[in-house]
């Protein structure tokens, strides 16, 4: 009986003081990561005219973006206590950030799919080519409108996960604008990571490689600054935040955070990108591919670390 999990819950509930959150786990980290990557990749693909090959007549970047958002949503739904009620999560748009994000997920998927339909190839033909907003040079008002709607909702999809965390006043480490900013920066860095991985496979991704490398260095520098300032500010904040920082820097999450997020996820890629910037050919492509994998891993581990380091401030303070 002493080892029965319900007894441990009893003991934990009777403790006052700092408590690590156990409400959300790895599924939420996966959801945050995939939503961020999906939303940011759609924006990056259309801004930079990234070309990640063709799948069913559509740009590979668009396919990956849509899939990431769909899979992320599926992971989250599977984590719900009552998954069949997931549509009810759209009700509280007035105040709930999850509701706002969920609606934007659906708007993004709908707008992006409608936008891409004219280019869809099935069995060698394009059944939706008759739609007026498609074609090689789409400049119709409808096309622009769909692109704007998809783009704006993609931005919300990329960033709202951070706002979901930052809403929690009960977990001081999360309750800061630094969290959504970090999530956004890492999301865009991850999209470049996907481009770097695709480069040796496709040979050409439609964008000047040196420009991407330079952008990558800048984005990773921004990620480092944002993460560093978040940690620094929380170190001088309340006891719960300090406990979170301790967990990340010296505690159970230090290997993941310092090793995975900072070193492998930012510093090593920055060095590799600097090396790649001054090289060409296979060496450059190989270096970039490794970079891409490390950036993606770092992006996921950041979300995981921030989630796991969430510590409730003491429920009582007199």
């Amino acid at each position: 009986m002493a080892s029965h999990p319900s007894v441990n819950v009893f003991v934990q509930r009777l403790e006052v003081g700092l408590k690590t959150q156990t409400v959300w786990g790895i599924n939420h980290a996966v959801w945050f990561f995939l939503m961020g990557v999906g939303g940011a990749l759609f924006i990056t693909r259309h801004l930079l005219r990234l070309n990640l090959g063709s799948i069913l007549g559509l740009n590979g970047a668009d396919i990956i973006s849509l899939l990431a958002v769909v899979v992320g949503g599926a992971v989250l739904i599977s984590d719900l206590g009552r998954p069949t009620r997931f549509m009810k999560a759209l009700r509280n748009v007035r105040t709930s950030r999850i509701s706002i994000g969920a609606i934007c997920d659906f708007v993004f998927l709908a707008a992006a799919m409608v936008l891409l339909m004219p280019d869809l190839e099935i069995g060698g033909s394009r059944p939706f080519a008759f739609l007026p907003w498609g074609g090689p040079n789409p400049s119709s008002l409808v096309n622009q409108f769909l692109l704007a709607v998809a783009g704006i909702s993609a931005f919300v999809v990329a960033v709202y996960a951070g706002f979901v965390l930052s809403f929690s006043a009960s977990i001081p480490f999360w309750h800061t604008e630094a969290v959504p900013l970090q999530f956004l920066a890492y999301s865009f860095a991850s999209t470049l990571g996907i481009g770097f991985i695709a480069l040796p496979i496709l040979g050409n991704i439609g964008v000047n490689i040196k420009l991407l490398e330079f952008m990558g260095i800048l984005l990773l520098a921004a990620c480092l600054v944002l993460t560093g300032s978040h940690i620094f500010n929380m170190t001088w904040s309340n006891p719960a935040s300090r406990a979170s920082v301790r967990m990340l820097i010296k505690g159970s999450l230090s290997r993941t955070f310092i090793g995975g997020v900072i070193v492998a996820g930012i510093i090593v890629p920055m060095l590799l990108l600097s090396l790649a910037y001054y090289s060409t050919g296979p060496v450059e492509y190989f270096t970039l591919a490794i970079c891409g994998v490390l950036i993606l891993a770092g992006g996921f581990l950041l979300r995981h670390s921030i989630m796991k380091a969430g510590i409730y401030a003491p429920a009582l303070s007199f």
Partner: protein
Amino acid sequence: MTRYSMVLDLKRCIGCMACTEACAVENMTPLGIWFAPVPKVEVGKYPNVKDIFVPMLCNHCKEAPCITACPTSALKKRNDGIVLVDRDACCGSRACMAACPYGALHFYDKKMRILAPFEDYAQRKFGYEKGTVMKCTFCAHRIDSGLAKGLKPGVDPEATPACVVTCPTDARIFGDLDDPQSNVSNLVRQFNGRQPRPETGANPSNYYING
């Protein structure tokens, strides 16, 4: 307007946890879920250190962050200030649990069980569903049935939360905070009652005093 509130007297609480048990029996909560725990807290600085017992429960906040965070609007505040979970609407996102500063919400995990043979009865009476969130309701079922009989919550035991009725030292006092003549209002005024974590902006309905 009515705003039900509980005043918790830290000087009177002896940590017997009769309230914790009474709540569990009254609400037939699943094994391991306690709506009204009484943790022991060490206060003071060496060498003047002592332990006090601090009854905790849902504060039924006026600006409840759980209501704001819930994506399905399953959490609702009644006109009398009691915050309840609509279990038919709850999808188990646990956003409320992340938002609550007091740890007052509990997730009824699919792995948990209510002590048999009450499980079926409890699920029928209270509508408990695995995969949803549950919390202290100020024994709203007792309050509602008491009011229907013309009884007064906080005064008549039948219309008062079980934890308040059970407390042997009267460390829990229940009443209408919006009534300036009520017992809770008088106690808060007289003993300079303090809200837990007022800095969160949740405006909790419960107050702590050293009576």
